[in-house]
């Protein structure tokens, strides 16, 4: 499907959602939930909270869908709702002490100005890059991100030290980052 027709399809889904069609809104959720959860997981050290905030975001989006005028991309609109939830969450849970995980959490949340970036495009680019990753790197990424193994468990399986494993994963992420940048470079 061309980009133009998919945008037209999405506009139709938005109009149907605005007239109360819950199935159409469900389709919008299906299209946008993955990148939104990915974006929230990138902002929060606790991924269970990230997934909960994604739920809240879509519940609010349904309530406010009639107010969406279509003058900006729905992705940005959804991200701004999510960003509000994120800010509230961080404010509520920010610890008084500095130097701990809570301060780190506060720092990694993106600024308002960074909201314009397209998360769905970078996720698509990541998927393309992942398609070219071969074993054993592919297996390591799957064990960490698909099977949810801890770095410690992976280090035991691979019979290497855990700090070596953290660096191995970090280098893999760095090479993926370069690949994504190349793909997103116009």
């Amino acid at each position, binding site marked *: 499907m061309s980009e133009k027709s998919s945008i037209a399809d999405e506009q139709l889904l938005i109009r149907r959602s605005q007239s109360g069609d819950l199935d159409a809104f469900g389709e919008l959720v299906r299209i946008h939930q993955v990148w939104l959860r990915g974006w929230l997981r990138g902002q929060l050290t606790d991924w269970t909270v990230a997934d909960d905030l994604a739920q809240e975001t879509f519940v609010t989006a*349904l309530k406010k869908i009639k107010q969406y005028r279509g003058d900006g991309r729905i992705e940005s609109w959804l991200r701004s709702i999510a960003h509000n939830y994120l800010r509230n969450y961080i404010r509520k849970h920010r610890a008084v002490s500095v130097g701990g995980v809570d301060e780190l959490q506060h720092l990694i949340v993106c600024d308002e100005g960074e909201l314009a970036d397209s998360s769905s495009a970078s*996720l698509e680019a990541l998927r393309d890059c992942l398609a070219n990753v071969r074993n054993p790197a592919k297996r390591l*990424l799957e064990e960490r*991100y698909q099977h949810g193994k801890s770095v410690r468990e992976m280090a035991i399986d691979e019979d290497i030290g855990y700090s070596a494993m953290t660096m191995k994963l970090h280098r893999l*992420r760095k090479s993926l980052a370069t690949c994504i940048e190349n793909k997103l470079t116009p």
Partner: protein
Amino acid sequence: MNSIEFDKLLALVIADEASGDEVKQLIDAMNNDRSLLLEARYHFQLHGQLGVALESEFSREKALSMIKSEIEIGDAEEFTQRVSRKIHRQLWIKRAMMAAAVMLIGISSVLFVSQFSANDDAPENLSAVASVTAISGVQWLDDEYKEGDSIISGQKVRFGSGLLELDLGGRGSLVIEGPAHLDFTSAMESVLHRGSLVMRATEQGHGYTVKTSQGSVVDLGTEFAVSVNADNSVETHVIEGSVEAIAYDGTSVTLKANDARRFNETSGQAIPADIGKFYTSMPPTQQKYKYAHWSFDENEGDLAQASGELGESESVNKDLVLYAIDEGVKPRWTKGMKNSGIYFDGKGGFAQSEYQGIQGGKARTVCCWVKVPEDFLAAQGYGIISWGKPTKLGETWQISVNPDSQDGKVGTLRLGLLGGHIIGSTDLRDGDWHHIAVVLYGGSSPNVGTHALLYVDGKQEAVSRASLQEVKTNSSNGDYGVWLGRNVTYRKNARNKSRNPKRFFRGGVDELYIFDSAISETQIQELMKR
């Protein structure tokens, strides 16, 4: 800081393996150099995206169905609120018109109109259709009920977590597990929007109907369970007797004992019956029990003496002996919640009893005071209290402070069995004493996901994460009994200790009790006051 050092720190932090000092170093670097901050953000973002890009199809569908389920609940509430607003608006208009009529027609008419108005506003049926007989750990989301309260036709019960038992006025009883939303439409019918219920119908209750979004379940003289799942599918499991399950397309099927069926929007299919998923009764309120108690009031020496009848035997000494292995020191005596307590160093100090703990799937309660330091590290959570063998699924019983963010919220109360766990929601990492209790209801196949309750400071915890695993605790042939402060999976002769850092608990423990019974919330609260 050079880029190699920065990469190393960032890699450790993203892997959730950094120490407090390392986290602080990274924060300082990010605060001092915005380019490092942006680079770190980019890596966290990529880490998050990998989490969804590589998640399994099953996980993705599950996440999608949970969002859709929340949306439907939100939409239904919005609809209910709109209808309610409309009704109130209409009533207000009606009343205003009546008031105008009163002024025009005069005093004699007032009496007539008032009477008419009162009748008009009254619910159609004011008779009770159910009454509350027991409440356990319920967190109400709407109208609150207390034991003995009546529920009339048109009312609903809606709560986030906990268990609620209702008597249906001679027609039977319901045990409802939260999060739940149940509307009572008439004496013989209710609508389950969310949650699980088990109904035991009397002869008078035959024909009682539980409606759901996917169809209805009609009692034919039986005990049955109905659940509306997060993906909006509906399951019916028959415990005894039979039911008629009717899908919304009109097709019906009769289910007998040990039959189960799942319905969704398009189809219905037979599934294996699993009664272990449901609470068929409320936690026992009064019963005899035995217990073992360690007060830790010795305040000196290498022994914490036990009292109580549980586990009494001439050949078994229940006293806890204090040990140190690896780099640790023996648990030290400290100021406890009551008199003295003991403190574990998180490096190798632990305590061991010859008592083997409660075995199999038998009911039990374990409770104590714990003090978790504010600077607690993820590696220091496992093994506050544990026993059993870590070789087969379900055979261990270990109470911890959850150290794994992938399993649920870090710093909360955790019960793990090897293969399954249940995780609470209160962060214990504040350096204060907290009372924790873990309760397991016994049964033929009790499950950690459905038969265990967690309490913090006398209140039942909302469960943040749970996975299913039958409880089959087994300490047979073990060369140790109950452990305090030591991860049950850690063996002293492990080939490479450095690769399993989550070996010992760091923090304080006081007033430990093990009961051979599931004690109630009230009893836990009484125990806290002792």
